[in-house]
């Protein structure tokens, strides 16, 4: 008997334990809000929705989204409001809107859809954006304010103004003001035009264009002026964008050419296999990513030393096996290294594949840096630009401040004299060639982030690289930097009206003509060393 009693007591205790959440739910203010919405007559629906919005409940977004998608229903028997997760077939999967807990399936006959009218449906997008304006993350708030531009209607003006009062983040405030101004301009408010005059957002421009075309001459006049000032700003931004793309293209050229500037400019070796050394660097990145699957970032960082080493080793092999036998015969080194480049290309085709390989771009390198509505800079190009400048600076330091740099300069200027002073010229040759080749490898690592990695990668850059070196003045690192950046920019400036191919042709012809005028490039070497 007592056993039964105690069991019953235990049972009761369990029941009460289980119903604890239920009691918590009873007190949930959300429940009342939802029931209010479900029971509201057509004229009060808007009020009910606004009540949900102003409650500040974090779950409100989900509810309203479900509401707009016809997925908010009531269980006929209990009157409980539920979220319909899946409304296909006879049985619908439902969940508790308050806890998010899955409640299993229920026949659709037992459910009663919460009705929505078209007016509310039309406003819902704006209302949802309003909800996001309460988010803790300012980026989310800004994005939602931006979403709202052009979508503001009379019903949103008041809550938006309230939001503006509360908002502390300046850029979010700007966005809200612009969104409001677009609405006000469409309502014929001339003051709002001044707010839009500073905006580069396409929707702001669209609103102003509408105003120009509108019936109100005063408004149209003011809008025209605002558009002009926007046009000015856009021009500036476009110029900045062209400059950025030009510099980024130029930085690629600099990276590809700067290794040549060392081997060609300093040693007088015309290394036609330079492009293939770049290719080796790019394939090293690809190989590294195959070794470390799922960690493209780490692989990329490790590729920097690895790409340098691989290309430098290849360079040493080329120098020892071929180039050292061709001292003082620069035209022959051209032919021999061209042969090497053919062999390397075919080697990659045979050993790896004739197809292009895709190198993954790590997350921190993809995406872009948004400066304003008209200008955003792609991150990978920004990194490559920075990388090129770092490589340049490092090379500059090596050539100016290290013993190797000193010896290299001595050997270049007067080989015999340098040797008699105890400099081991052969060793210097090897080191110089290794350095130039290694830098080509670094260029390959960077290029793998911008283009496809394939056997023809090197070929595409070799002529450009020589052009940069010759244009800049052989043997001059500064010349290479300036030549590369300016050629990239010129190319980018020409492209809009000439097209990519023609722009390239024009640049090539320009260099050919330029060399006629200044055969030794932008910054020719002066003095006795230049005569050699």
């Amino acid at each position, binding site marked *: 008997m007592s056993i039964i009693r105690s069991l019953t007591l235990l049972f009761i205790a369990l029941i009460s334990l289980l119903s604890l959440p239920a009691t918590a739910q009873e007190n949930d203010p959300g429940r009342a809000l939802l029931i209010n919405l479900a029971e509201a007559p057509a004229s009060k629906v808007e009020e009910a929705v606004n009540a949900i919005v102003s409650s500040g409940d974090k779950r409100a977004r989900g509810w309203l989204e479900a509401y707009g998608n016809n997925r908010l229903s009531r269980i006929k028997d209990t009157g409980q409001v539920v979220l319909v997760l899946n409304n296909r077939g006879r049985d619908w999967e439902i969940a508790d809107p308050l806890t998010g807990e899955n409640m299993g399936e229920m026949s659709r006959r037992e459910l009663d859809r919460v009705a929505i009218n078209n007016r509310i449906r039309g406003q819902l997008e704006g209302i949802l954006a309003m909800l996001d304006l309460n988010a803790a993350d300012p980026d989310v708030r800004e994005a939602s304010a931006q979403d709202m531009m052009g979508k503001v209607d009379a019903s949103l003006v008041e809550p938006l103004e309230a939001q503006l009062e509360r908002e502390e983040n300046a850029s979010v405030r700007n966005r809200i003001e612009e969104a409001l101004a677009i609405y006000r301009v469409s309502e014929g408010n001339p003051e709002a035009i001044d707010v839009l005059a500073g905006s580069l957002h396409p929707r702001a421009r669209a609103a102003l264009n509408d105003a120009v075309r509108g019936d109100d001459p005063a408004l149209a006049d003011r809008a025209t002026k605002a558009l002009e000032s926007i046009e000015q700003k856009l021009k500036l931004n476009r110029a900045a964008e062209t400059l950025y793309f030009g510099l980024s293209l130029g930085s690629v050229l600099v990276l590809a050419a700067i290794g040549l500037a060392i081997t060609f400019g300093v040693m007088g070796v015309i290394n036609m296999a330079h492009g293939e050394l770049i290719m080796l660097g790019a394939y090293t990145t690809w190989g590294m990513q195959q070794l470390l699957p799922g960690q493209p970032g780490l692989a990329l960082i490790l590729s920097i030393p690895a790409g340098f080493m691989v290309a430098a080793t290849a360079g040493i092999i080329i120098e020892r096996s071929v180039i050292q036998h061709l001292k003082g015969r620069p035209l022959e080194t051209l032919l021999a290294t061209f042969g090497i480049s053919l062999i390397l290309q075919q080697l990659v085709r045979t050993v790896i594949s004739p197809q292009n390989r895709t190198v993954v771009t790590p997350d921190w390198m993809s995406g872009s840096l948004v400066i304003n509505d008209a200008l955003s800079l792609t991150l990978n190009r920004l990194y490559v630009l920075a990388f090129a400048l770092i490589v340049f600076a490092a090379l500059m330091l090596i050539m100016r401040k290290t013993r190797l740099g000193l010896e290299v300069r001595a050997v270049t200027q007067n080989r015999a004299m340098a040797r008699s002073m105890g400099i081991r010229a052969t060793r210097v040759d090897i080191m110089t060639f290794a350095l130039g080749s290694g830098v080509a490898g670094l260029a390959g690592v960077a290029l793998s982030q911008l283009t496809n990695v394939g056997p023809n990668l090197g070929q595409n850059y070799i002529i450009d690289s020589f052009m940069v070196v010759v244009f800049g003045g052989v043997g001059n690192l500064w010349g290479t930097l300036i030549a590369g950046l300016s050629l990239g920019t010129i190319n980018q400036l020409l492209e809009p009206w000439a097209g990519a*191919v*023609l722009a390239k042709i024009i640049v090539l012809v320009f260099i050919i003509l330029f060399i006629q005028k200044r055969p030794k490039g932008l910054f020719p070497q002066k003095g006795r060393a230049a005569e050699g």
Partner: protein
Amino acid sequence: MWLTRPLRERSTQLFLGVLFAALVVVTFLHLFTPQDSALHVSAYTVTLLGKYLCYALLAVAVDLVWGYLGILSLGHGAFFALGGYAMGMYLMRQIGDRGVYGDPILPDFMVFLNWQELPWFWHGFDMAWFAFIMVLLAPGLLALVFGFLAFRSRVTGVYLSIITQALTFALMLAFFRNEMGFGGNNGLTDFKDILGFNLRTDATRLGLFIATGIALAIGYVICRGIVTSKLGRVSVACRDAEARTRFLGYRVERVQLFVFVVSAMLAGVAGALYVPQVGIINPSEFSPLFSIEVVVWVALGGRATLYGAVIGAILVNYAKTVFTGIMPDAWLFALGGLFVLVTVFLPKGIAGLLFRRRKTDDTGNTPDAQEATA
């Protein structure tokens, strides 16, 4: 007369003798042996040999500027291709309304691209004499303008090589464009006849082969004539010591310009003869790779010998035919290896090997073996 002097030389007589003997033997074997005989030379082989002879003429042209003037042109493919395009335009106009679209005026590719009328630079190419003049004029003019600018400002050595390469690269990019009016990347093809002869008949092919042989002979004699003349002596002097030659009072840039233009025209003729034999001309002839390959033919045969260029061109192209036939992938390895081996181990080429014992020159430049013995 500078042109008849080479004919009195033993080496030129030998070269011409071998060339004409080869022409006669091939013609005889093609015409008078039965099809199934082992000695029979098929029409395909005749065309192939004709192609080799075109390349040989191109190589002679390159050797003239590289061997005797010291200018390593990495862009002679451009002159070759321009001559080829001039001939291709003539052949295109000869198709008449027999093209796929049957347009009596416009070539097929223009109909395809919706061109309404013939571009101005196509006018005149329906006349053979005009086209043949353009074969010489187009490459000649380009060489004249380019050479004038380059030599006047004393661009030499490596720089000149690199900008000749850029020149051909720029032309390649340009000719790949459909808007250029030269058929874009498909180039010009589907030729029917030349001077009224059907290009697909064996007789025409044989005729073209013989014509190429004669052109090579004439080109060779012209080059020999130049290099044995006083002009040729000066150009060798420019090659070996440009500054000294200038100090002696010679107008170095004029010598360079003249030789360069002649060489470009020869290359143009080679291209013009090449096109009807292979039946197509497209922008790939402008690729820097092709131009550099030509230089290697010359290097393999032996610089500054002229006949070496012919030997090199024929050998490498024969090897290419064989290699790409049996193992296509290995060809680039073989070609690359050839580049390296020739430059490192055979700086004087095959001609240098042949005449090693008679070497008298220690300057590192290939000696003129015939002169030494003459």
